[in-house]
């Protein structure tokens, strides 16, 4: 029976495998990956002054991984990020669902912002969260503006819906002024 199994399903299965392994890997089970959050270099904060180094594969892992994004979503709620960023819509802190990034919109730049804190209220989370958690948060923050693969994010959280579903959000282009090339 299996020999006559629809070939298209096989092909789809293979595709799902390639995407799926990456998307669904449960990273927390193992030791944290050796991927410290980099300090933000002036290049990445003030774009145009030079070329930022490409995003490392370890960092890229987080923004393609459903578990990392989901954990980030949970941390975003429990660490009270909404207090300032209000479900990504902005309040005291800048909005996160738009395409505007004050300190860069790449995952390593966002992680650096979380780690170091930024003037005007953004606290530093260094030592308060593990590096892994900061990567997870950064991955989730990127998902708010549709920057991560749609199949890895959840449509909504089990909370008040202040924004359209993340699986439906338009992918916001990164403004060239905000960061170096992807």
């Amino acid at each position, binding site marked *: 029976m299996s020999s006559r199994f629809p070939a298209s399903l096989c092909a789809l299965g293979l595709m799902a495998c390639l995407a799926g392994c990456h998307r669904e890997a449960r990273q927390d089970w193992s030791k944290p990956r050796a991927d410290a959050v980099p300090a933000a270099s002036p290049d990445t904060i003030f774009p145009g002054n030079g070329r930022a180094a490409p995003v490392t594969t370890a960092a890229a892992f987080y923004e393609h991984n459903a578990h990392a994004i989901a954990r980030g979503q949970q941390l975003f709620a429990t660490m009270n990020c909404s207090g300032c960023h209000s479900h990504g819509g902005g309040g005291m802190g800048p909005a996160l669902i738009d395409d505007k990034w004050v300190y860069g919109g790449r995952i390593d730049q966002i992680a650096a912002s979380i780690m170091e804190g930024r003037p005007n209220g953004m606290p530093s989370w260094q030592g308060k969260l593990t590096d892994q958690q900061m990567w997870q948060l950064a991955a989730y923050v990127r998902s708010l503006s549709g920057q991560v693969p749609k199949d890895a994010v959840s449509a*909504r959280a089990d909370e008040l819906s202040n924004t359209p579903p993340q699986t439906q959000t338009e992918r916001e282009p990164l403004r060239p002024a905000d960061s170096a090339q992807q």
Partner: protein
Amino acid sequence: MTGRPSFVEDVSKLPTHAFSYRSLTWWGIIGFMVIEGSAFVLTIAAYFFLMSHEKQWAPPPWEPPNPVAGTLFTAVMLLSEIPNSMIKKAAEAYDVAAVRRLLPWIVAIGVLLFVLRGFEFNSLNVKWYDNAYGSIIWALLLLHTTHIATDWVDSAVLWRLMRTPHGEEPRRLVDTDENALYWRFVWLSWLPIYFLIYWVPRMFR
């Protein structure tokens, strides 16, 4: 079977088609109508289940849907029963010419209904992701739209088929008859949904 059977009755004189419950496909259509009817009933049950948690329905600050497009849709739907009945009668009277003449009407009405349905989605005043009220309203409307779509495709294909020599065949008239029956199901099932989408959210504000 061992040995020669004893031949009791000759069935070669029996007809090779029949309308209504004597036809095999009629039972198939009824089966699918029951399935889809159960789906509607359960969706409506879910609607009331969600509604029972609320003090007001539609829950403020959401406005109830604007009923203009929906009412127009309902009117067209009810009027469509006139050509539909005529088709059904013509099919049962083996009047192929009448069937061929009338089917385009149903197809055209279907197109009109799609346009109106588009306006309906636009007049709900709530998005499916806003809250469960919005979700269930959208679900009801979407579920019914799939029925409009399937029967519209069915009618269009039937129209095309009836214009071929196949149309002369009595069994195709049985098909036409059953298509008309299904259209009745589509508009009958719309009536409670229309009420639930447009009027219940007004009554409980």
